[in-house]
């Protein structure tokens, strides 16, 4: 997660639940992440998956990922090519799941970001740059344990490394 990321923002509101990200009606596709990822954020914005490009960002308000513990929610966001999720705050289980599967959850003040804004993220400096609006936003630092897991590439990789 050290390299600089650059892409377009897709803005969502508050309380984006895992039912909006990964609808229960596709429960049967959970063993087929590629297929499931074609429905990423479908209930929140049916056009999202058509309009986004790999490297773009999901940007939201408070409590992103609330609700069910389905890890498939961050998994399909990652599979769809989204580089990172930025939100004012994340629901607890989603945040942990995202780290565990190696999707970077970025907690920062997203109020000034609009859909279509060009963003650049400098993970090392803990800064999100809104290139469209010429603003710099500070990122809340990660807990040490989580940083280590993310740097290993996810919890599975982290545990494997620990075992060696």
């Amino acid at each position, binding site marked *: 997660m050290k390299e600089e990321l650059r892409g377009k923002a897709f803005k969502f509101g508050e*309380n984006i*639940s895992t*039912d*909006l990200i990964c*609808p*229960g*009606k596709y*429960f*049967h*596709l*959970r*063993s*087929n992440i590629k297929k499931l990822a074609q429905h990423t954020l*479908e*209930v929140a914005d049916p056009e999202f998956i058509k309009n986004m490009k790999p490297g773009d960002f999901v940007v939201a308000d*408070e*409590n992103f990922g*609330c*609700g*069910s*513990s*389905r*890890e*498939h929610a961050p998994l399909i966001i990652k599979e769809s090519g989204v580089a990172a999720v930025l939100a004012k*705050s994340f*629901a*607890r*289980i989603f945040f*942990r*799941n995202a780290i*565990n*599967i190696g999707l970077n959850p970025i907690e920062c003040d997203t109020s000034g970001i609009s859909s279509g804004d060009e963003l650049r993220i400098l993970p090392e400096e803990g800064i999100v740059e809104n290139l469209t609006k010429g603003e710099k936003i500070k990122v809340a630092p990660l*807990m*040490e*344990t989580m940083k280590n897991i993310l740097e290993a590439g*996810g*919890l*599975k990789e982290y*545990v*494997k490394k620990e*075992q060696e």
Partner: protein
Amino acid sequence: MKQTLTEKILSAGAGRKVKAGEVVFVNIDWALVQDGTGPLTMDVIEELGKGVTNPDRQCIFLDHASPSSKSELSDNHIKLRKASEKYSMRLFEVGEGVCHQLMAEDCVVPGDVVVGADSHTCMAGAFGAFASGYGSTDIAVAMATGKIWLKVPSAIKIVLEGELTYPTLAKDLILYLIGELGASGATYKALEFTGPGVETLSMESRLTICNMAIEAGAKNGIMPADDKVADYILEHRGVSFDFERLRADDGAEYEREIKINLSELKPQVAAPHSVDNVTTVEELQKEKIKIDQVFIGTCTGGRLEDLRDAEKITRGKTKNPNVRFIITPASKKIFLEAMREGLLDSFMETGAMIGTPGCGPCVGIQGGILGQGEACLSTANRNFKGRMGCGESFIYLASPATAAAAALSGEISSP
């Protein structure tokens, strides 16, 4: 150092005294997965190649697709059955009931640390246990190593006074509280229930309340264990279980305190599409909201007490012709007892359909999926857009008594 109840249990699990804010590795007593989260967990366990620690305390539940409605889901069941055999893990078959209810009936005791790949794992906090939901990978690692890492949560103290009076029920209390806290008002925190009101609540009511701690974002919900917990264990498992009556220390530190007088509460409803969008039934019934489906069931509202509370209202009456009335007991045991008591006969005479024990239509897989523009009044715990299988439908959450009233009137109305 004065400790909250959560800190005490996590201290025992960590093998040293811990306080809020610390990151610790805790030994777990139980871990669970269900048929939605389990397949991914099994892949990770397989990849880690370490096998499973204490396999008889690792539980697999086939409850969300109960019975299966699609071949892909049946394949997942096959995969989980094979994993349970390979690692000698406990398997609860299709039709046995919802994971959290079966954990309550069969497994959890006070002081346990319970983790599960299902967000409502927090329900087991009603036993005076630390119980919390995680994702599939976290649970895979927990099952493999017997431990989980976590940050000890700070706590919000909920002081309950007075006593609930029918038709105001446990569900009304927790909906009211979530309305007060907001859907993220307790994120990362413990909700510790205390005060004389807790003792007046039945064990089944306590389970309903702790079940929904996650709907305010909480890591866990917890109540001190008392004689009612011992009685529940004896009733369901036929064993007398003696335990230390753990309580929070006087003077333990809480982030904030909320007092609720149970005697003053009224029936509540959470309107679409957020669990914290709460009003009283009295207020909302003025809007004459038409209901197409009433669903009584789930790990929140499908226990025996719930069925009894609902049947009191529907007994001898006929449901509204425009309503589909669906009842899904949360477990086989509840189904059998409801049958013996004549509750199911009574519901069917009212015009209800009875579903197989399990999650039913709660998460939109089977057994009562909504259509475009339809409204459902449900005793479940979530009303997110799309939750019951259709993005353009509306879910209202309320108590079993309020649900029963809606089945008769065809609209949201006071029980």
